[in-house]
């Protein structure tokens, strides 16, 4: 293959890469959603922490959504954020791209409703598809599966 041909092939591959990344992003849902029917927020937190631990992640902390923003007596008890992490995965992902911090540490937001508790998380694969880093995206697709697995286990 001549030098000119090699250059052309490289350019075409780049074009394919940049055109297909947004397509991959469109295939991803922006939010991952689950629900725990008939539970209150305390029970949901407990079940979620168990699921986090059994999926090889470390529970970091939880906070009510307006924690430290309003006096303790005024807190909205119906929305809580649960933070967790897999430190090895976090270290590798940050080494690949510091923009990973956009979705670190991992978090699931719990919202209590009349039917139970909804779990919502930003899909890391949706974010990484927009960052345009193919290697990071591979990690994030796995991370998305981990989120889904944690949510499914918590909902059982």
């Amino acid at each position, binding site marked *: 293959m001549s030098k000119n041909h090699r250059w052309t092939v490289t*350019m*075409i591959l780049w074009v394919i890469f*940049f055109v297909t*990344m947004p397509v991959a992003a469109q295939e991803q849902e922006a*939010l991952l959603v689950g629900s725990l029917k008939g539970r209150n927020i305390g029970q949901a937190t407990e079940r979620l922490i168990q699921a986090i631990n059994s999926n090889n992640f470390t529970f970091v902390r939880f906070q009510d959504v307006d924690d430290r*923003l309003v006096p303790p007596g005024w807190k909205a008890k119906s929305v809580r954020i649960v933070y967790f992490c897999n430190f*090895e995965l976090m270290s590798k992902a*940050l080494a690949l791209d510091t923009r990973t911090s956009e979705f670190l*540490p991992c978090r699931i937001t719990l919202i209590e409703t009349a039917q139970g508790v909804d779990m919502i998380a*930003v899909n890391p694969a949706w974010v990484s598809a927009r960052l345009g880093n193919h290697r990071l995206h591979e990690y994030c697709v796995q991370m998305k599966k981990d989120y889904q697995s944690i949510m499914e286990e918590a909902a059982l």
Partner: protein
Amino acid sequence: MKHSCAILVLAWALTAQASPLTTSIGADMSGAIDELTIAAQNSGYQLVKVQPVDKALVKRGFPDPGLRILFIGKPSSFEQAIRTNPRLLSVLPLRLTLIVEEGGVVVSSDDLEMWKEMFPDPETGKLIDSWQRELKVILGEVSGY
């Protein structure tokens, strides 16, 4: 070759991605956190939490990424989010990422343009725009504009 380059530039333009707000502070990490805390307070925000990702990783034997995350918030943001689109609660409180670089600390906000894509309805978009304006003021203040 010229054609290939043109195609590449076009593809790049078509897929151009929004980027987060960024600035740099000529201080060490704790100095930068102090400056941001004051700037946030001047815009009605409070520091909710500093997530010391660097310390957490080093403690476990991983390389130091020189990175911490600041969570800032104000009660009205949550009230607006609940009223406008409760799913917005999945991205609050607002976050600022601090990364140590030579000569100071680079600060980046979350990419709020991406959130507008995530929540495409106009009402939510307006709310996100207002948060983005406030973040611009906060970052502008620490960068001395």
